[in-house]
């Protein structure tokens, strides 16, 4: 059984909001200086799901990423977690691909990678939060898609997936092959083991160009950024003054009612 995981390297979401910078003219996010990009949190969990399935059912796990040469670091990290093969599709475009372009490239790469029983993606990338790539890949490949999984099981040759919905989850089942997007409810991803790190250091990552996988992007892009800006948020601080605690509580409650919070 082959499982393919699509991962993306994103700017570290833990950088302080004040340090987040964009170029409104070029409609681009400026990578923060001195902070290394990280593997997107949901994608890391997608790798974890693949590895849990591998532990249980014996599978070969392949991770694929698109991006500049530095993105290989994310692949290597997934390999050190326990993935078997890493593929890096070099992205030589000036503009960052939109969801349709990314999905197109990934679908072509997946086809080139060969047979698969399951494709896993994060529910969304932690940078643009579009949450579309997974579904578009499935459409591209003509396979079923189940989104926002909190659990993925293989039961009687079918994928049984618990999808997070408001107030709970629903259980769905789909035949192989299928695409599942993974949510953080799946639990903490594992850390690389010592042996994993050594293997990953020695492993050779497969490098493909867009030509290699036969990706032709003309006419694929369907979205355009009209304006990129950081919303301005204002916060006002009102200190409730009182001599005693009960009095303060009372005043606070009145104030909250005044502004219609309670």
């Amino acid at each position, binding site marked *: 059984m082959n499982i393919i995981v699509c991962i993306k390297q994103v700017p570290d979401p833990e950088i302080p909001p004040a340090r987040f910078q964009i170029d409104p003219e070029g409609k681009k996010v400026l990578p*923060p200086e001195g902070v290394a990009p990280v593997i997107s949190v949901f994608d890391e969990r997608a790798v974890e799901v693949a590895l849990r399935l591998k532990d249980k059912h014996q599978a070969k796990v392949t991770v694929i990423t698109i991006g500049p040469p530095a993105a290989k670091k994310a692949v290597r990290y997934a390999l050190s977690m326990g993935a078997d093969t890493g593929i890096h599709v070099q992205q030589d475009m000036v503009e960052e691909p939109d969801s349709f372009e990314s999905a197109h490239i990934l679908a072509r790469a997946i086809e080139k990678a060969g047979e698969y029983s399951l494709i896993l993606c994060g529910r969304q990338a932690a940078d643009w939060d579009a949450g579309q790539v997974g579904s578009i890949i499935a459409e591209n490949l003509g396979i079923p898609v189940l989104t926002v999984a909190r659990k993925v099981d293989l039961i009687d040759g079918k994928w049984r997936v618990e999808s997070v919905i408001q107030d709970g989850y629903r259980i769905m089942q789909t035949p192989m092959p299928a695409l599942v997007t993974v949510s953080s409810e799946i639990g903490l991803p594992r850390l690389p*083991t010592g042996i994993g790190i050594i293997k990953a250091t020695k492993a050779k990552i497969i490098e493909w160009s867009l030509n290699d996988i036969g990706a032709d992007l003309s006419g694929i892009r369907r979205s355009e950024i009209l304006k990129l800006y950081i919303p301005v948020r204002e916060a006002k601080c009102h200190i409730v003054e009182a001599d005693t605690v009960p009095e303060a509580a009372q005043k606070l409650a009145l104030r909250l009612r005044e502004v219609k919070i309670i």
Partner: protein
Amino acid sequence: MEISREAFWNIQYGRPVYLGMLLLLPICYSIYRRYRLWSLGKPVEKLEKGRLGSFITGAAKILIHKRLLGIGSIPSSPKELYAGIMHALIFAGMLLLLLVTLLLAVHEDFVPFMHGVPYLIISFLGELGGIFAFAGLVMAVIRRYIRKPERLDNTLDDSLTLVLLLLLIITGFVIEGLRISATIPAPPWERWSFVGFALAEIFGLEKVSLLRWHKWIWWLHVGIFYGTVIYLCFSFPKLFHIIVSPINIFFCSLRPKGALAPIANIEDAETFGASDIDDFTWKQLLDLDACTNCGRCQDSCPAYISGKTLSPKRVIRDMKVRMEERGSKQSVKSPALAGEIIKDDDIWSCTTCRSCQEVCPVFVEHVDKIVEMRRNLTMTQSRMPEAVQLMVGNLFSRGHPWTGAQYMRLKGDWMDGLELNILGKEKNIDTLLWVGCTGALADRNADVTRSLVKILQSAGVDFTVMGAEEPCCGDPARRIGFEILFAEQVQQNIEIFHKHNVKRIITACPHCFNTIKNEYRQFGGDFEVLHHSQLLARLLRDGKLKITGGERRRRVTYHDSCYLGRYNDIYYEPRDILSHLPRIETVEMPRFGQRALCCGGGGGRIWMEEPVGTKINRIRTEEAFKTGSEVVVTACPFCLQMFDEGIRAKELDKDLKVMDLVELVETSMAVSGEEIQKRRETG
């Protein structure tokens, strides 16, 4: 009549006693049996460079009872002195008695020399030996059965050992007394054997009738001695430490105290660290046999003191039991040592403060064993507390160990408003100020970094910083057992240092300091590393810092950081700095210097929860508070954080605050930021 005596005298057939020498064979066999157990461990070089010297210093340490009497330790501890004197008396006494007996044998059967004064001196020495040993043994009985310190467990072996030795000494004195009694005419010179003579006076002088008694008790005495030796051979009791502990001291680690051993050929390894006995080195197993269960380690262990289940003594003892088990039945595989016999919680409770090792009289090395087991848990089994997992994840993705709102800043943010040379841009400066992750990321610690920068600048020290590009030094990864991450990080760092021709590194963090100074060498990085306390002490001595008056008279207490003190013997410099500051009165906490209690933050503990027992930092905060000081002075970013939390949790913030040494120096300095600016403008 000549002043001398015959050795056997009343004992006609005494010479077969020499046959007892044959008992050396079972002793050797016994050592061999233990050696086979040690050989379960991995071989490491036994006679590396400097080993010969360590034999000599080891012997000296044993002779002067360095650890037991606390010679050279700061502070000496009266509490420990009782046990130290007790052991020294028994040790010196037995050694003297053995020597005297040996000389007597030489005199009798080889070179007769004990006539006149030499005889008197040797008799007197023997007498002293007996008195010393007796006094020591009585002290031991009082300690073990009347005072009963918690750290001692009383086994049958302990009682048997004391009884046998006491009987040996008592019968020795009695036969001496009987011999003097039964000698006719009474030899007046035997007054030099003062105890024997006193006993003889009690028995009555010139009493031939006592000859029979003398004979019987003589044989009893010999019987007890050989009985003790036979006991020694066949049950490997505590007394065997006479043989094994010196061997252990001779083979003690020659690495700097602060350096853990690297994993050799890590890239070819399949498993990491120690999951069971055979994963340790033979020396680490020798440690287990050298241990005498004295319990000093347990008494000084912050984890044990604060109510955790970890006891360094128990770790060693449990490992020893496991070693014997593995030695007798090779097939015993489960349960594993790491995680089952020694519980995960215990392995993670260690703060690596090294106080157990600092007090161990036989130089058992506990910390590296704990770290070996951590290596197995983290790298092979991938099993660690969630907090550690988070921290390792951060090291992987962000290159520093911190998470959380407080640390939502970038590594170079602390530099705002300071004029600094960045490494790589300034070619002619070979001194690097290594800030460390905590000093760069945590708000409170960044204040310390900025103080240090201002002081260095005002003293005219040229240095560069790495700013936003500064990675982790590797210490957190190594202490929690993630050696691969450590090795990778260190190699990268050394490459950067070499590339930019860094020769000297100054740091405010004792953990960075220890790793860069003592452990980078294992990877080919040899730099002059200075902790800020060393540098500031030097600058003060040279008059490079202008100290005026402090704001007002203040009482302060200094908390020794483990990685500065016990790891690197830096006790003096911080105190020297404090003594240079006007209007500062320094008082010590009851536990200071080598005996200082850890703040609870070392060994990766600062990133972990502490749900069991009392929090270590609260205990230490209480100790600082009780000195009546208004400031507890630290020289370590972790200690600073631990005290900060302790003070707030105990609601002592009105009376006590925590400051780094450099902050205190800065408040006493004449030069303000503006003046530095002015000075720079005028060139």
